[in-house]
């Protein structure tokens, strides 16, 4: 049983980079998806369009919107490719996911919400606590991701 399991992932050290990128793209896509489903559609906190949005904000939103499903679909195929080559490494993949999710969350929270004023997290409330929770959460995700990636950053056993 153990032998068989090991055998399936025996190329994982050669595929360290691909595991990292597969996770990174998936993390980014997942956070964008959660953002869309929870904050736009279910809670209706985020607005589709905010009158204060700068033009660069529209470009950034459009790019990340399109990129989020590119990343999700692409990472699914990259994952299939890793399995096809017996190179899947779950810990490094998870590290990539946390890092990708955190980076996008931070970009959304600082650059898109604050500098480009795309939209705010919520309207008609004191916004500071929301921004703090949002960005601190992003930082925690990034730290978890980096720790996992450092732990898996060796070439051999």
């Amino acid at each position, binding site marked *: 049983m153990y032998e068989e399991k090991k*055998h399936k992932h025996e190329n994982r050290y*050669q595929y360290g980079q691909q595991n990292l990128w597969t996770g990174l793209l998936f993390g980014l896509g997942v956070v964008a998806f959660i953002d869309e489903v929870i904050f736009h559609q279910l809670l209706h906190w985020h607005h589709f369009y905010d009158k204060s949005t700068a033009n660069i904000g529209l470009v950034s*939103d459009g790019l990340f919107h399109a990129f989020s499903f590119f990343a999700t679909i692409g990472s699914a195929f990259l994952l299939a490719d890793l399995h096809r080559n*017996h190179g899947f490494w779950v810990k490094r993949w998870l590290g990539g996911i946390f890092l990708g999710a955190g980076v996008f969350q931070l970009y959304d929270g600082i650059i898109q919400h604050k500098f480009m004023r795309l939209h705010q997290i919520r309207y008609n409330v004191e916004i500071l606590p929301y921004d703090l929770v949002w960005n601190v959460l992003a930082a925690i995700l990034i730290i978890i991701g980096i720790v996992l990636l450092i732990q898996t950053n060796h070439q051999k056993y």
Partner: protein
Amino acid sequence: MHSHESHIQNFSILMQLILVLPFFISLISYIVAVYYSNQHKKSWSHLRTVSWILGHLCAIITLIGPFAELTHINFSAHMVGHLLLGMLAPLLIALAAPVTLLLRTIPVKMARPISRILRNSYFSFVRNPIIASILNLGGLWLLYTTPLFNMMHESSLLFILIHVHIFLAGYLFTIAFIYIDPTPHQQSYIFRSIVLLVALTAHSILSKYIYAHPPSHVPTEQAELGAMIMYYGGDAIEIGLVYLLFYQWFKKTRGPLSTKFIPSS
């Protein structure tokens, strides 16, 4: 309200028929070709035939009948029509591999000159992903951000031209990225992916731009709903495009290690 009445008056049955006729002809031709070529070749995929029929239905309901009339007076319905005629119909029609069917149906003597025509530099040029994206997205930006949208509803000729353009540019765009039929001068997957990303970005930006700056004479609530239909409805079809592109890429790629893989004991 005045503009709405004039839209209806301008919207003649003749115009609908002119737009729909080519689709009826191609729908029937395809089915005849499938029947004829199945007599002496192996059976043509039913899925492709179904895809062709569904693609044509998408186009036809947008161009004739009660829904077509609604697209003239209601911007949200117009946007659903845009998704059907400019995105979904071209994708389904491209998936039906019409050129492959044509080449296997006609005699080899006739097929050779046709494949030579398809290889010529004009088709390679417009089929370049960048050119196809400019023709498709550039056309949409022109339509929705200039007075062209209102002029379209005043002139039957302009209406026909724009609708023909929307479909053809949508088809060209689809086959520039997804290779179903034989494709000369293929572009790399990485290049197609990057251009597709930029094109889909432009589509998202345009939808939000329409939300904020609707074409004149379009009521705000219709423009806002229409923009959201374009944004999210576009996503659904774009996800299909991206999936197909990456799926083809995945099938083409075999990891360098998989061939060298020797099970260790």
